[in-house]
């Protein structure tokens, strides 16, 4: 350290200029860093949970905007249809690609024709039994009578081609299969719109090219929607759900939290400066965290494509903790320049080990499977490393001569405190210890991201009206080509129906069966429609037809259909029937393969027999509730990993540094007290510890270990007594940085801030008073 200081002293100007240029470049990189504010950064990116979350994102309505129009009064219900039509015309543009307000109107005749043409592939055993009953002479007589009457009615023109192709009414066996394409049992088709059972709500589904991760795009999209909604007629209100709302809400709240946290941090730091430093040159100390923040952001930017809003919010914390090293150096260098090198030499070892404990503690966070946590860890590691470098190497060259700091009156008061306060503090620790046994882990996703109350309320309204897809299970076939995917999809359908025959499933299987199922059905159909039977039926049709004056060629299309070789149903030709958009909802493309989706009620999916059977077939079953359970378990596993690793690293470093059990214990006291108080308060309030309050633990351990290290060094006489003041001011600056986070709104930032506020708040008295008491020497 002495050699380095003396060497740089000769090239001070050049060194400072280089540092200034570097920092300027970092500031530019930091300002232009792209941000990311969606919930996906909080979700593990590896392991089963990541896979399940990715699959959940493939559910039919993910990424789409669900709009609910509600008629406030009975008379306003008539306005719902026209309002929906007007909205479906007004919304499309650059921000919204399509709006679906009901089933496709062209679906009718073309679809019926397709269904009847492919009846051999679609009718199962039960259907074929009913079909046999429809081919008796009595049934044919009744069918022809109905056909005659239908043709004479006003709807005759619309039914003509269908009756010619299907005089027996086979279509009545096929229509029920369309129900399997309905995503919700709560949807009714009325007046060509998706209506609720009560008739007071109408559903529209909009698609947007704006990704949910795009904050600016989300802002424009939401503005466009809400402006268009103002044109709705009186008595009609609109509520809507879209992931973009959460992205925007989170981005907005993170930005306002950043402004609050940074602003308040800086104000508190200025106050601390005025009370404890009180020298103009001490302002230089405050340059360090600013430079550290810029450098850390710049390095993080080059390591990752985007920076999470959580990491930016953590910038306030980094200011608070990175200033610690600068403060220690500042206080240590309070003397003429000639003594500086020696002062630096004395402070460098505890400073280095403090840095190592903090780096070790933050390094434990790199074990997290959550991208935002890992990014936060790297951000802080960069920051602390730069802080050490700047504080030890650059700062001493900026302090000039005679930076003796005038003593403060409070120092004397700190040294002697009543024994009653000691006792009170220890009692408080014991109470916290008792309550810490009641603490639980909260894995709810809602505690990781900001949920605007209005958005949540509207989502609840839509869920209660239409039945939420978050109360359903999604079953995905393994990824594969179309044919194996259809086979797996069929197997899923049959399996679930076997265990729960009355369950309403949403699946392609009834309308796009697997090739093997189709083959079997066609064989069964051909077995029923032997040439003798066909002749008997067509003769009966002709006989009855002649009674009503039908022409000889009236039912030729039916005869041709019966004689035709049936072409198999594929996803493509189902598309041609007008089912394309609906079928797409059940298709999950994966590169050149596809997964098919089945939707079933959660209560059915939870059936152990069904779950086991599905797993044996290689199907993946996912639901929001299951992802939540996996996340909760993940948070518990992470907490053990973080705490265990951080505690182990800190302990090993303390042992390496002191090699004396008593001194190790004395240095470890502050982090121990911090952990007890944080867990105790969580247990007392019943709030639980979520992922981010647990993430703060390694931070607390690392920081508070620093205080213990410096206080033991002071007790050993290996550090100047000014280190005690430095520890106090460090603690206060950390509280200024973290304490402001406790005032933020975003749950992740708030949780971290609260943990560290109470942890460091408890550790500081332990470091200043208990640690010296344990070492047995006067500080």
């Amino acid at each position, binding site marked *: 350290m002495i050699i380095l200081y003396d060497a740089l002293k000769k090239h001070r100007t050049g060194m400072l200029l280089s540092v200034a240029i570097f920092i300027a470049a970092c500031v530019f990189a930091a300002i232009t860093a792209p941000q990311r504010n969606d919930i996906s950064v909080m979700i593990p990116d590896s392991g089963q949970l990541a896979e399940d979350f990715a699959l959940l994102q493939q559910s039919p309505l993910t990424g789409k905007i669900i709009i609910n129009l509600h008629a406030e009064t009975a008379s306003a219900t008539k306005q719902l249809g026209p309002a929906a039509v007007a909205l479906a015309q007004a919304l499309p543009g650059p921000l919204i690609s399509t709006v679906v307000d009901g089933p496709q109107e062209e679906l009718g005749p073309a679809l019926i024709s397709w269904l009847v043409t492919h009846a051999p592939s679609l009718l199962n055993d039960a259907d074929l039994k009913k079909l046999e009953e429809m081919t008796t002479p009595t049934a044919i007589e009744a069918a022809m009578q109905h056909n005659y009457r239908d043709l004479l009615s006003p709807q005759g023109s619309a039914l003509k081609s269908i009756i010619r192709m299907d005089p027996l009414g086979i279509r009545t066996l096929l229509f029920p299969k369309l129900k399997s394409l309905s995503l919700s049992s709560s949807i009714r088709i*009325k007046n060509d719109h998706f209506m609720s059972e009560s008739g007071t709500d109408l559903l529209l589904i909009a698609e947007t090219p704006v990704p949910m991760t795009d904050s600016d795009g989300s802002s424009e999209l939401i503005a466009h929607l809400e402006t268009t909604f103002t044109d709705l007629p009186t008595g009609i209100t609109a509520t809507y759900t879209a992931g973009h709302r959460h992205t925007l809400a989170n981005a907005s709240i993170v930005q306002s939290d950043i402004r609050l946290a940074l602003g308040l941090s800086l104000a508190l730091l200025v106050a601390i400066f005025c009370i404890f430093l009180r020298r103009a040159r001490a302002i230089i100390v405050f340059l360090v965290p600013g430079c550290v923040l810029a450098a850390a952001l710049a390095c993080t930017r080059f390591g990752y494509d985007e920076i999470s809003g959580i990491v930016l919010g953590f910038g306030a914390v980094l200011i608070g903790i990175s200033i610690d090293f600068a403060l220690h150096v500042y206080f240590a260098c309070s003397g003429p320049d000639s003594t500086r090198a020696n002062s630096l030499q004395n402070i460098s070892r505890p400073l280095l080990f403090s840095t190592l404990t903090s780096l070790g503690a933050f390094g434990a966070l790199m074990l997290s499977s959550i991208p935002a946590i890992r990014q936060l860890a790297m951000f802080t590691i960069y920051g602390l490393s730069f802080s050490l470098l700047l504080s030890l190497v650059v700062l001493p060259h900026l302090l000039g001569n005679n930076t003796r700091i005038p003593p403060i009156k409070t120092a004397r008061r700190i040294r002697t405190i009543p024994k009653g306060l000691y006792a009170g503090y220890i009692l408080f620790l014991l109470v916290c210890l008792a309550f810490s046994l009641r603490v639980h882990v909260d894995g709810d996703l809602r505690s990781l991201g900001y949920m605007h109350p209005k958005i949540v309320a509207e989502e609840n309204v839509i869920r209660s009206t239409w039945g939420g897809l978050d109360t359903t299970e999604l079953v995905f076939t393994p990824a594969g080509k179309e044919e194996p995917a259809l086979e797996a999809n069929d197997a899923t359908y049959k399996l679930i129906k076997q265990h729960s025959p009355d369950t309403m499933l949403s699946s392609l299987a009834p309308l796009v069966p697997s090739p093997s199922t189709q083959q079997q059905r066609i064989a069964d159909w051909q077995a029923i429609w032997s040439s003798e039977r066909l002749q008997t039926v067509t003769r009966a049709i002709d006989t009855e037809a002649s009674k009503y004056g039908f022409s000889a060629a009236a039912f030729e299309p039916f005869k041709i259909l019966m004689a035709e070789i049936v072409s198999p149903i594929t996803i493509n030709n189902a598309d041609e029937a007008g089912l394309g958009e609906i079928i797409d909802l059940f298709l999950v493309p994966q590169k050149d393969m596809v997964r098919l989706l089945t939707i079933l009620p959660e209560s059915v999916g939870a059936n152990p027999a069904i779950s086991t059977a599905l797993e044996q077939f290689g199907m993946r079953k996912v639901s929001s509730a299951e992802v939540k359970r996996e996340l909760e378990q993940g948070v518990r596993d992470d907490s053990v990993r973080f705490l265990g690793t951080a505690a182990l690293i800190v302990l090993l470093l303390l042992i390496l540094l002191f090699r004396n059990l008593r001194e190790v214990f004395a240095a470890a006291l502050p982090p121990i007290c911090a952990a007890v108080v944080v867990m105790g308060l969580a247990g007392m309030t019943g709030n639980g510890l979520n992922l981010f309050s647990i993430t703060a633990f390694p931070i607390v351990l690392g920081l508070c270990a620093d205080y213990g290290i410096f206080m033991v060094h002071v007790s050993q006489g290996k550090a100047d007594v000014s280190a005690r003041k430095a520890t106090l001011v460090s603690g206060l600056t950390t509280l200024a940085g973290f304490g402001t986070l406790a005032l933020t709104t975003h749950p992740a930032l708030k949780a971290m801030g609260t943990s560290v506020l109470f942890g460091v708040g408890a550790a500081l008295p332990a470091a200043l008073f208990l640690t010296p008491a344990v070492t047995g020497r006067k500080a």
Partner: protein
Amino acid sequence: MRSLSMALFITLAMASFAHAQDQSDVLLQSMRQQSLSTKTIYSRFTQEKHLAIFDEVVTSKGYFVFERPQKLRWEYESPFRSGFVFSGDNGKRWDDLTGIQDVDLASDPVMRVVAEQVLAWTTFDLDTLQQQYLIKVKGTVPISLDLTPKSSALASIINHLLIVFADDGKTITTVELHDQDGDFTRLSFYDTQLNQQLPTGTF
């Protein structure tokens, strides 16, 4: 000189077209006013189905009753008894084979379109007709209109409609519905009574 004559000819042609268009609009508007003043209609009809699916023209007889705003009864009496009655979105249909069934127009798109179309044609609901059809005046004595569907869904079934009015222009005498494949249905109305008291239980 030639170009001047051409320009004059085009101008005269456009002027006469515009004049004819104006006259059509005036005529339609006066018919609209006439229909709006009609509160009830009772009329008998003969229906001829000229369909290739039948060897011969199939003739039915029946009657219909309308009461503003949206009540309609349409009944066949021969060759068999059947019909439907609607009031708003709800109604019934009957057949001497299957008996009486309830119908919800909102959930039955085919019946809904049928009821809407029949109501529009027989009552000359110009607002609905102009939304769904391009209307041309083919003749004025008697008034006859040619309607061509605007939407592809309706056009897939109906090629065009022909509506002919009585000489006094107050009632419709004929509606011809021409399908895309050349088939057509002719409804001939007679004994039409406007704004009469209707028997209770009609709807």
